[in-house]
């Protein structure tokens, strides 16, 4: 008889944590391979295509960095929210709201103000939009105990419809290939890119700076301390005299605001106009959840995990074209990897020992 027993593991080293993540991702890739196999695709080829497409070529890598920008921004913001066990699933909506606010600001002031004023202004507007959209579920949760998973999700749908309403209605501008959208932002409001790429460097720098600042906030400040206490044990937070409303509003303002920044980057850095929700963001708000989880809720690591998942997005696009796979493939890859990451946590926190015993059941 084989007996598997588990016991708690007390000393978790960063190395073990890293190795667990690596093994989890590897195990996830095995399962993804099986799915590819069933779908009639050579899994080795598909997986190598994903990574060649994203990291294997200069063009691919530039695209990967471009897509990493929103993932790092949102992922870092989510690490803060998740630390407090505030399950913000609404980053997608917060990104769109940031895009809406910044588009309005850009269209309104872009022709009046010089670039060095308008660019900070649209970033501010984007942050504000995302933050406002993020504060709503915080208030709903603390004041009316409404589950934030549901409220943030509902706000995603509402924001997407609202955005569509704007671009087919009052904000309607040039149509492009039959798709509605606003007019292009004025030149002054458009972010510069690294030549030969779509990397809007201002946002890239911003994302890395934000991740570093957040890391300091979480580990060195009173606010970060209170956030961690609330997440570890809300009852202890209450006992310690922490103001839940204030803490939640701030952390959701930051989390939503960073998603708003991501929205600014997509609009002013890439598209230059506001179009359909699905074209503004390719599910960055959801992918960033995995980014945050893979980063073990440390904003600094979100830089690395953000680049990794951006690679999967880019590689996923590549195999869609080369292998004729549907767009949903990326979602399968993401979902599977997330499942294996959370399963891996169990093996990080528990020691497994397998014993072979000759004792039979009595």
């Amino acid at each position: 008889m084989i007996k598997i027993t588990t016991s708690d593991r007390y000393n978790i080293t960063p190395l073990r944590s890293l190795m667990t993540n690596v093994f989890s991702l590897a195990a996830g890739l095995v399962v993804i391979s099986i799915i590819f196999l069933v779908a009639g695709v050579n899994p080795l080829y598909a997986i190598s295509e994903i990574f060649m497409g994203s990291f294997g070529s200069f063009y691919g890598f530039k695209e990967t960095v471009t897509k990493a920008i929103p993932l790092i921004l949102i992922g870092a913001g989510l690490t803060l929210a998740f630390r407090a066990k505030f399950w913000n699933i609404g980053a997608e909506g917060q990104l769109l709201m940031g895009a809406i606010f910044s588009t309005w600001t850009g269209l309104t002031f872009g022709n009046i103000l010089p670039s060095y004023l308008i660019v900070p202004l649209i970033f501010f507007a984007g942050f504000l939009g995302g933050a406002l959209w993020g504060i709503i579920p915080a208030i709903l949760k603390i004041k009316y105990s409404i589950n934030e998973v549901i409220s943030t999700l509902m706000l995603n749908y509402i924001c997407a419809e609202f955005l569509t309403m704007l671009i087919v209605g009052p904000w309607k501008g040039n149509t492009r290939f039959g798709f509605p959208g606003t007019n292009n932002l004025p030149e002054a409001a458009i972010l510069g890119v690294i030549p030969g790429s779509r990397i809007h460097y201002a946002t890239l720098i911003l994302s890395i700076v934000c991740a570093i600042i957040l890391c300091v906030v979480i580990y060195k400040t009173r606010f970060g301390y209170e956030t961690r206490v609330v997440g570890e044990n809300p009852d202890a937070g209450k006992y310690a005299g922490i103001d839940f409303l204030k803490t939640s509003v701030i952390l959701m303002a930051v989390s939503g605001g960073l998603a708003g920044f991501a929205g600014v980057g997509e609009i002013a850095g890439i598209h230059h106009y506001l179009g359909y929700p699905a074209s503004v963001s390719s599910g960055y708000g959801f992918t960033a959840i995995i980014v945050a989880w893979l980063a073990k809720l440390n904003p600094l690591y979100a830089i690395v995990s953000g680049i990794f998942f951006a690679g999967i997005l880019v590689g996923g696009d590549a195999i869609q074209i080369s292998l004729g796979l549907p767009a949903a493939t990326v979602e399968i890859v993401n979902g599977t990897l997330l499942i294996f990451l959370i399963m891996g946590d169990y093996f990080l926190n528990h020691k497994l020992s397998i014993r072979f015993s000759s004792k039979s059941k009595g």
Partner: protein
Amino acid sequence: MEEIIISTLQRTMIAGTPLLLATTGEIICERSGILNLGVEGVMAVGAVVAFIVTFTTGQPWLGVLAAVAAGMTISVIHAFASITLQANQVVSGLALTMLGLGLSGMLGKPYVGKPLTIKMDDLAIPYLSDIPYIGKIFFLQSPFFYLAIFLAFAAWFLLERTLLGIQIRSTGENPQATETQGVNVFRIRYLCVLIGGGFSALAGAHLSISYSKSWIEGMTAGRGWIAIALTIFALWNPGRAIWAAFLFGGIFVVQYLMQPLGISPNFLSMLPYIATLLILLLISLKDPKKLNAPAMLAAPYNRGER
């Protein structure tokens, strides 16, 4: 006018059916203490599997069975992660939704836009369907409608009038105590997660082979999430879920009614989501202690020796 009212109510019942199915399943699952946020994804898998099987075999009921089987199978992932490995249930459920939506998109790609020729016919209940007005609304409906109502009552009976029901509810309230009474908490929770998955898939099957009779990616349109909200609104009681679900069915239908009035269709599409938030707000005005939420909902249970 009469015609419009009757057809509106009739469509309300159809629109409420998937919500009722998914809500009932989630109620059973949450009553055992497991929060399953995978409803949306499982519903999508159910929809696509039901469609494919019906499309290829021409047997709608075979499609339904296949959908339920697929829904239960994919729910095992959430069960294993959240019960056996005591993972975070919020994240595990989200992962299931991502995976489910992805799989449904991949499986369904060849079938997008293909109409279903074999329809699941409406079922007229003899005599009752002849009653003026009411007959058409309640007794000349998709078989899923009757099934959903029946299953909601069955779920109520299961939870309130059987030993298994007591064991399920006890598991959600106090797993330690339940375990010491000789009940296998893990087994109960696995069972409930699987039942919940089956219900969600059934809801999806209704969408693809009875409601719209076609497969479109993303056709679940957040219904799974609304079902999770309705679970709270129904105070974890399948009886209350019936009218809660049809109330929401009404909101879905009202959208189409109001379109001719010149209101932005996008604004109307927001209604179900806004209504969900409003209804949760309404519930929160009630005394939270009387909300009746399972005490140990979403708390992992560590069976191990301390």
